[in-house]
């Protein structure tokens, strides 16, 4: 489909791949770097074919070290490049934590705006793929708590295609979460339709009974829950956050003022999380509109369990509907 206009059906993975390609074509300063991103095209094939077409100077297979990847990306950004770094799995972002939190996030502030950090850090996140330890994590709250970086999460192929390009065009560092269990889900991409701004939330299904807010891999689950709920006469409104930092909560407040009930959904452990922030903000802003407390459906406050337990660990349609019922019980 590369480059041609019109509407096409693509997977989320392909959306990212095509989005990266478009960004690389548009700006020669965009370079892709990470473990196995070159010849292999990444373990999820998101960078498939890019090294072949753009060369080893623009698609760098790096040594095995996440701090090295982000730290050298910072240096390349200082030199005028726009690095797009791949962290192979969510659970391997932590060795780069220092470079992200104390360096990538700080250069613009430290330099009073003289130095820019247009770096994208791509992180496939979340569970549900039957993987071994450290391959199913949801570390987004760590980054949402960190000033100086921006955090987004795409949930479908169309957003994947546009959001990755918008993130690369952004002059600030962006941590870009990709819902790995949704990589192979398809959507119809219309290249002629202008995308919404990167840092905006979006209502993805209208309803009146209660509002469900989520992001990334759980958007599909929330939409499925809404479909099931409809059979019971409940009309759930679903909002895809898309941007985790800065948060764009106006659509959420609007919705809650109408529905009076909010369920926040995320795979990540709930304690001291982004989802807690949502609950706190809505509880404050919609104090007089809420007919029930904001309820949270999250991963448990435990390490991600062995794969055979993940079905129980991950929020699913039933747990969302259970929360809806509880909210309606108030």
């Amino acid at each position, binding site marked *: 489909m590369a480059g041609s206009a019109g509407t096409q059906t693509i997977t989320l993975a392909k959306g990212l791949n095509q989005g990266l390609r478009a960004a690389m074509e548009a700006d020669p300063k965009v370079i892709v770097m990470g473990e196995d991103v070159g010849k292999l095209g990444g373990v999820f094939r998101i960078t498939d074919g890019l090294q072949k077409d753009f060369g080893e100077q623009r698609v760098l297979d790096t*040594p095995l070290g996440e701090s*090295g990847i982000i730290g050298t990306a910072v240096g390349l950004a200082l030199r005028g490049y726009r690095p797009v770094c791949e962290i192979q799995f969510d659970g391997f972002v932590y060795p780069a934590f220092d470079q992200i939190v104390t360096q990538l996030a700080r250069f613009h502030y430290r330099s009073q705006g003289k130095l820019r950090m247009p770096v994208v850090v791509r992180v496939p996140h979340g569970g549900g793929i039957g993987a071994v330890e450290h391959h199913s994590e949801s570390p987004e709250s760590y980054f949402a708590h960190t000033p100086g970086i921006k955090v987004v999460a795409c949930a479908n192929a169309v957003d994947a295609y546009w959001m990755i390009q918008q993130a690369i065009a952004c002059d600030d560092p962006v941590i870009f979460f990709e819902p790995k269990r949704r990589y192979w889900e398809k959507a119809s991409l219309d290249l002629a339709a202008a995308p919404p701004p990167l840092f905006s939330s979006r209502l993805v299904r209208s309803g009146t009974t209660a509002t469900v807010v989520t992001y990334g891999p759980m958007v599909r689950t929330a939409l499925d829950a809404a479909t099931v709920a409809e059979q019971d006469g409940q009309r759930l409104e679903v909002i895809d956050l898309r941007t985790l930092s800065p948060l764009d909560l106006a659509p959420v407040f609007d919705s809650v003022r109408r529905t009076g009930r909010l369920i926040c959904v995320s795979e990540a452990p709930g304690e001291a999380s982004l989802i807690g922030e949502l609950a706190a903000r809505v509880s404050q802003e919609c104090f007089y509109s809420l007919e029930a407390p904001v309820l949270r459906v999250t991963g448990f406050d435990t390490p991600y369990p062995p794969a055979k337990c993940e079905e129980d660990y991950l929020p699913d349609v039933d747990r969302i509907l259970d929360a809806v019922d509880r909210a309606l019980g108030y």
Partner: protein
Amino acid sequence: MPPRKRAPSRSSPGAKPVGSPIVGQPTVGPVVEPLAGPIVGTAMEIDGPHNPQQIIAGLRATSEGEDLVQLLTPEGQRVSHPRFDLEISAAGIQALYRDMVLVRRVDREANVLQRQGQLGLWAPLLGQEAAQVGAGRAMAPQDMAFPSYREHGVAWCRGVDPTELLGIFRGVDQGSWDPNSTGFQLYAVVVGTQCLHATGYAMGQRLDGKIGNAETGEATICFFGDGATSQGDVHEAFVWAAVYDAPVVFFCQNNQWAISASLDRQTRVPLYRRARGYGFPGIRVDGNDVLAVFAVTQWALRECRTGNGPVLIEACTYRMDAHTTSDDPTRYRLADELEEWKLKDPLERVRVHLVREGLAEPDFFAGVIDEADELARRLRDYCTSMPVPGPERIFSNIYAEASPSLDAARADFLAYHASFEDGH
């Protein structure tokens, strides 16, 4: 600059006299001269290569060359080595051969189990049997091993039943064996982290006063890959181990690849050279030669037990299968390379040696194959009958001390679970 001195040329190849047969752990002992040497380097330490062309040429030679300790050629010829010679009985070689055959069989069976959907993933060790068995058998019972995720062969040598390896890959646990009774820690998935754990453990061995005797002292051995050497944690482990004289052998299996990254993505020069920059010895051994690995590792562990650690060993070997069952190596490496390494197969050279030198009868080989078949059958039976953990596993054992909030979460979830008619 004058060229650096080359080592004395290797003694001419030839089978060594075979000692008395042994049972179980082979009784062997490398012949090692005491090490001593100047401390301050040569005056002009800029003799390393620094022209990229030279370096690339150098890397090509990485797994060959005069600096590789070898005691058994790929053709099955015993050769001697001026420093790491080994006296080993026929039974000793047989035992190592048997280990390798069984370990390979475990590996191949698990690979099949993954293909059949019984495992979610498998990380094959095919091709690395000599490195793992040689190192594993060099360990004394009191030593401790810190593996990565591919050390199924070391696990075998430590008495971890192969069935216990399956839980991780089937997704029912994250390692079920007992690290303390086996002397074999749990697998480490975050690359390189285990090197610091091993170093800390070895620091503890020293603090405990378990250092000072080559036989009865304690040592630690840490396994990691060529890719891992790039991680900051591995460097910090080298720094800490050197500063605290920790009795730890850093055993790097250079299998030439870190997923799709060939060795030149991690280094310009052979990896064993890193050690000198920290002030401890680095040795390079033919990782497909179980005798050489055994001899070198035994020496290194003895050095550590004596108090002369740490030591770095680079075992040059080859990952003959995919990185894991999720990987497709045809995307990044040529079939030729595999063919070349097949000629250096770690099992075949021992088999040829045993046969050619008349050190084992056909019965022995048949017996080993029978054992392997039986082991494979047991593995398969166990795998398909492994109990699946219930949801309570999610909430269990997160903390050593009581955790009322997790207990409450578990109770809530179990009640929720039970509220479904079919039990969910």
